[in-house]
C-alpha cells in the first residue's frame, strides 16, 4: 500500500521558475525512504509538499497531486495533515517552542484537543520511545543538540502520524549523534511500522536502514528504487558522486575495473565478508 503518492507534480514558488518538475513517485507504507540529490534539487520542496506546507503555507503555482495516506494534500488543511504527517525541519531547534521537555510533547497533543490524562500517558510513552525518559522537567535550552533533535522527533511522533518527514536531520549533529539518530529512526521504522522520508547528504549513515532511495536533480526524479540502483546511477551519471559512501565508491570502482559483481554493501562488515570470500576464492583458484 502506498503511503505517499506523487502524481505528475510540478511546483513553482514564483511562476514560471519550477522547483519541482513533473514528479511521479510512490513511497510504500512502512518503508524507509531517503531523498538524495545536490543542493537546489528540490528535496526540501518535495518534503514540504508531502507535509502540505506546499501549497497551503507557501502558495505558488502547482499542477498534479500529492496524496498522503489516501488524502490529497490540496483537499486537506495543514492541521488535518499534521495528524498523518509529522515533519521535522532542518532547523529543528526553532521547532521547540516551550520551556520544558514534557511541555513540548504536550504542545502537539494539545493542538489535537486531547484530554489531560491522555496527554500525560502519551507524553510518557513518547519520551520513552525517543530515549528521553527522566528529562520531563528539563529545560529545552539545557539539552544537547542530539537530545533536542530527539525531542523534535518526539514532539511530532506524539501526534501519532503514520509518516515522518525529516529534512537533513543530521546537519547540526556530530557523527555519534547522527549514528544515534539513525538508530532511533531505524527502530521507529521497524517497530512501529512508521513510514520515514528523510532528506540526507550523509548516505553512509542511511545505508543500514533505508530501503528506498530517490535521486532528484534540478527538480526532476532521476532515479527511484533500491539503494543499489540509485547509488549506481549516481556513479555512472556522475550526479554528486562525491556524496557516495566511501564503501560504495570502492565497490563501484572494483566492479568497473575487475568486471565482477559485488553485493549491495550496507556496512563495512558486509564488505569485509564478501571481499574475504572473493580473495579466498581467488587464492584457491591460483593454488
Amino acid at each position: 500500500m502506498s503511503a505517499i503518492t506523487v502524481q505528475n507534480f510540478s511546483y513553482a514558488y514564483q511562476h514560471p521558475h519550477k522547483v519541482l518538475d513533473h514528479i511521479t513517485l510512490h513511497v510504500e507504507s512502512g518503508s524507509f525512504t531517503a531523498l538524495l540529490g545536490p543542493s537546489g534539487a528540490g528535496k526540501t520542496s518535495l518534503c514540504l509538499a508531502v507535509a502540505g506546507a506546499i501549497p497551503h503555507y507557501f502558495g505558488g503555482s502547482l499542477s498534479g497531486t500529492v496524496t498522503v495516506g489516501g488524502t490529497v494534500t490540496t483537499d486537506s488543511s495543514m492541521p488535518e495533515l499534521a495528524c498523518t504527517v509529522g515533519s521535522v525541519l532542518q532547523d529543528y531547534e526553532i521547532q521547540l517552542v516551550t520551556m520544558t521537555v514534557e511541555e513540548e510533547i504536550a504542545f502537539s497533543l494539545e493542538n489535537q484537543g486531547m484530554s489531560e490524562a491522555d496527554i500525560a500517558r502519551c507524553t510518557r510513552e513518547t519520551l520513552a520511545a525517543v530515549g528521553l525518559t527522566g528529562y520531563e522537567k528539563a529545560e529545552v535550552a539545557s539539552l544537547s543538540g542530539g537530545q533536542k533533535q530527539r525531542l523534535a522527533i518526539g514532539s511530532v511522533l506524539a501526534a501519532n502520524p503514520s509518516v515522518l518527514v525529516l529534512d537533513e536531520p543530521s546537519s547540526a549533529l556530530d557523527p555519534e549523534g547522527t549514528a544515534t539518530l539513525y538508530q532511533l529512526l531505524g527502530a521507529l521504522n521497524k517497530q512501529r511500522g512508521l513510514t520515514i522520508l528523510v532528506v540526507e547528504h550523509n548516505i553512509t549513515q542511511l545505508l543500514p536502514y533505508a530501503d528506498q532511495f530517490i535521486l532528484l536533480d534540478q527538480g526532476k526524479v532521476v532515479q527511484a528504487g533500491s539503494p543499489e540502483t540509485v547509488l549506481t546511477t549516481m556513479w555512472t551519471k556522475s550526479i554528486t558522486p562525491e556524496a557516495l559512501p566511501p564503501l560504495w565508491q570502492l565497490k563501484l570502482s572494483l566492479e568497473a575495473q575487475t568486471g565482477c559483481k559485488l553485493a549491495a554493501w550496507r556496512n563495512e562488515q558486509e564488505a569485509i565478508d564478501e571481499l574475504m570470500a572473493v580473495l579466498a576464492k581467488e587464492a584457491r583458484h591460483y593454488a
Partner: protein
Amino acid sequence: MMQKFAPLTKLLLTLFITLWSIMLQSMTALGLLIAGQLLLLVASQVRATVYKGIASLLLFAALLAGIQLALSGDTTLAITTALKMTAMTLVFFILLATTRMQDLSIALVSQCRVPHEYAFMLTAALRFIPDFLNESKAIQEAQACRGYRSQGNPLKRLTAYAAILKPLVLKAVSRSETMALSLELRGFANRRMSSFRSRVVLTARDYAAVMVMTGLSVFILNFC
C-alpha cells in the same frame, strides 16, 4: 509558597502591585512593598538565578536614581522613582519564577480571554531568550574575528553595535518565519487549549488572596 496560587491570582497580584507602586508616594511604604515582595520570593524558594536578575535590577534602579538626581537635583524624587520602578518590576520576577509558562498561557486564554496566538507569543518569547543570547554571543565572536571592537565612548560603542544588531535581527526574523511554518506543521491553527484548564482553576486560597489585595487597595486609596 506562591506556586500554590493560580496563575490568574498572580496576574492580579502583578496588576495590584503596579497600581500600588503608582499610588504610593512615601519612601517607607514603597520600601515595605519591595521588602514584602522579596519575602514572597524567599518563601517561594525560587532558584538562585532569580536573585542574580534582581541584583541587576537593583543596580539599574540605582543608576536610574543617579540620572534622576543629576537631572532634577531632587533626592526624594530620585529615590522614589527608583523605588517605584523596583517595586513594579520585582512582581514580574515573582510571576515568572513561580508560574509555569504553560499554565500562564492557559490562564490568559481560558480566564482572561486573550487569543491563544498572543498568549503563545509570551511563552515562546521567553523560551527563545537563551537562544537569542547565544546567537548574539556567536555573532559578536564572528564579528570580533573581522575586527569588531566594542571600545571607545558610548556613542562609538552604540554605532559599532550595529554590526552585531543587524545580523542578529535578520537572523531572528528568518527564524521566526521558520517557527511560523513549524507551528503550522504541528497543527497550531487548530489549537483549543482546553486540556489543562483544571490546572489553573481558582481555589478558596486564591479568592482569599484577591480579597486581601482588594482590601489593601482600598486602604492605600483612603489612607496613603
